[in-house]
């Protein structure tokens, strides 16, 4: 990897962008010991996700690689890494921070844009099928109440959530 060239093209302020985000404040404490990666159930089954590497890439300013890739969406939020990190780096929270940055930039995986439109439609991120609704009484659950989606829409519109658009070229 042509280190010098890449650093030049990369956004040097990216670590600061992450630090300024809720959850991203502790990123620069990382000293790359790998406790997070060896604690991670996802990293154990796929080479596509390694929290240590994502943090390193972020600290090197490799913004585009980090936020356009799939990796940040693979964290399962078990918080094992965060529990065991000797530097108190809030790794799982950093993943949320990175996702938020990516989302804002339009890098939105399909499943998440479906969640988003579902949320705007009826206030739930998972669409409830008629089959599921029918089964509720047999499990002793009350029928689902309306979510008050109008109020929710107001909030989502005030925060700009409904304006977030997926980038054309990403899929």
């Amino acid at each position, binding site marked *: 990897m042509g280190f010098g060239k890449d650093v030049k093209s990369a956004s040097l302020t990216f670590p600061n962008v992450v630090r300024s985000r809720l959850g991203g404040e502790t990123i620069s*404490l990382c*000293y*790359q*010991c*790998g*406790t*997070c*990666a*060896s*604690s991670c159930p996802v*990293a*154990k089954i796929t080479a596509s996700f*390694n929290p*240590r*590497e994502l943090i390193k890439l972020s600290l090197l300013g490799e913004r585009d690689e980090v936020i356009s890739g799939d990796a940040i969406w693979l964290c399962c939020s078990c918080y*094992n890494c965060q529990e*065991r990190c*000797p*530097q*108190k780096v809030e790794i799982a929270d950093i993943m949320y921070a990175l996702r938020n940055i990516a989302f804002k930039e339009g890098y939105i995986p399909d499943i998440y844009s479906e969640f988003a439109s579902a949320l705007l439609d009826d206030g739930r991120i998972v669409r409830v099928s008629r089959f599921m609704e029918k089964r509720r009484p047999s499990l002793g659950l009350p029928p689902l109440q309306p979510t008050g989606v109008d109020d929710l829409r107001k909030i989502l519109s005030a925060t700009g959530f409904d304006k977030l658009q997926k980038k054309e070229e990403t899929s």
Partner: protein
Amino acid sequence: MNDGKVGVFLSDCGNVLSEVLDFNALVKYVKEVSGVVLVERSSEFWRGEGLQAIIDSIEGGKINRVVVAEGLPKLSEVNIVQAVEEAGLNPYLVEVIDLKDHCAWPHREAPSEATEKAKVMLLAAIERAKLLEPIEKLEFPALKSALVIGGGIAGMQAAVDLADLGFEVNLVEKAPFLGGLAARAGRFFPTDDCAICIQSPASDVKTITHTSRKCVYRSGLSEIRNLNILTNSTVTGVEGVPGNYKVTIEKKPRYVDELKCVRCDLCAGVCPVEVPDEYNAKLRTRKAVYMNIPNVHPPVYVIDESVCKFQDCAKCVDVCPTGAIELEQKSEQTTLSVGSIIVATGFQEFDSSIIKEYHYGDYPDVITNLELARMIDGFGPTGGAIVRPSDRKPAKKIVMIQCVGSRDRRYNPYCSSICCMVSLKHATLIKSNYPGTDITICYIDIRTTGREHEDYYERAREMGIKFVKGRPTEILRDSGTNRLIVDVEDTLLRRFLELDADMVVLAPAMVPADGTRELAEILGLELDEDGFFKEYNAKLRPTETKLRGIYICGGVTFPKDAPTTSLHAHSAAIKSAKFLTTGKIVKDQRTAIVNEEYCGDCEFCSVTCPYGAVSLVQTSEEHFVARVSDLLCEGCGVCVGTCPLNAIELRHSRPNQMLAQMGALMSANGTGKPLILAICCSECGHTAVDSAGMAMLQYPANVRVMKVPCAGILQVHQFLEAFKAGAQGVMVVGCKSDGCHYEVGSENAGKKVELAKLLLKEYGIEPERLGMFNMVFIEGDRFADAARTMTERLKGLGPLKLAGVS
């Protein structure tokens, strides 16, 4: 004092200053000042003819106050003060100022302004000199004896040094045997020789041949007449003052007479109580009556009272051939009087069981470095064999984990500094004795910073010891085979490894020994945020504490290897000896004094004093007053700044002296720029002004410097007084708050300034007119910069409008 006859001596530094300053005008000005009876000008006054002129005029009775304007006053003042004293005048009636670095050099581009400033500087010095009062020198007796707390390497070395120098030394050790952590370490790097030997408190006086080292058991430690060794003992109380401490010591019963025991081992032979031997990593058992290993000091058995059945058994009493066993022994309290104390209580391993995912204490084959050291020690429980504790079979696959609880913000954020070397030493020792052993070291960074230390790392790699850069997340145990699996990412390869191991060795952090906090409280000393004792100054006074007479050495200040510990111990011993050697402490009385009439016994001063010099004394049934110990007081004035009733003053920096100086410095301007009073502490603040001048950095002459012992002496109303005296702005210049020479002064001053800003606002004064600046000596540029910035700021604000003052 109105009878002050002031002599003013103006040095023009070989006429170079007259290029900037108009000395004729200065002489003329000074002659007019009331109280001045003599003005002389010469090229120098700190030596030779110039100094003789000062001496002559004192001896002739012409003057009784001396003001000298001389270059480099922090050096020249010493000579001048000494000469003044020899001439028969109290040496504290001298005021030396610096017209070169504080005036001529920094204002050389504006000579007439510099001359005007020089006038008021001289006036301020004269006004202060007139108000100065004689200060007495006091002598306090110091006992020529010392207490050394802790009998590890550090304590033993320091104790023997002091004993060899002829002082009465008491060495107190909490455990029944000397040696401390060091004795358990098996072998030491960088020489790989045995730990029990290297702790060599060999008395230079007692040893006929000077060998490189002497083992503890043949060093004749107990034969040194002026060294009193108290094992099984703890310090429970310390009272008194430097030079004269009363120390209470509780000596637990040994139940064996030290003078009668002949180490025949018959007692242990019949003792029916068998318990796991903690000293030997529980790898073997010991009896209730025991010695740690055969070559301990003192070479006397001890009975573990927590497990002994005493009179219900007493078999040992019957079998002892010398009648040494005394089951009726009781705890004894003794009081020692010592002049000086050395704290050498060391460090210990962090309790790794707190880190649940490593299962220390849960899986028997997960051990620590110290436990491994016991196996490596030939005197240890396995006789040098490296075995799995669970089944005592040879450990053929070993994984070592570094930084267990070190560099870990959940436990200890610091690097424990020796564990990399300890693990490398252990790994190479095992590998050379048992070459077939498979050893992997999991590390975050390998740190080998000492001489010959890197050789260990190199040798380890050559020997085939494997290194994985990664911190394991967990140690797992295969429920079928009971083998251990270390789950780690090799971060260099980006590969997850599951390392199979017979035994896992943790390299735990090194933390202060148990009881460190309690001891600090007994001594009245503070610990750092990691719980270690704090040096007075880490670079120049590494064994001193803020209390004179109390010294620290070894691992009690931070984890250290054996060579560094020895250095530290010798250093502490020489400091202690220096303190004790004359048998007295000489101190001048530039200390604080309480006006008892005003004192409201609020305790602020005694709580704030960094030296514990102020105490409350009962004067009547309900009334207490603060009283200052001249021995303990360091003369910083932090108490003065804290007292809400102005009941404390420093004898050498009285408020009226400061006020007179302020008034003089603000009495004339001559620059057309807003006057600024820069109140500088005598340590970094005032010397930063020196260094600005030395470097000839230019700043405007409207900045007038006033020296105080420490910025902590300042009170809020003094800022108002400065404005009333004519200042348009006030700068407070102190040391960096973490580098304050009086611990808390700079920090307190900063708070005072913030409080004053609020008050100024109330009075309608812009708070920006007041500012706190922190700098060190070499930051003259920062002072010059601050002076310029402040001047510009005040120009922008316009003239000060003070209610009630025209």
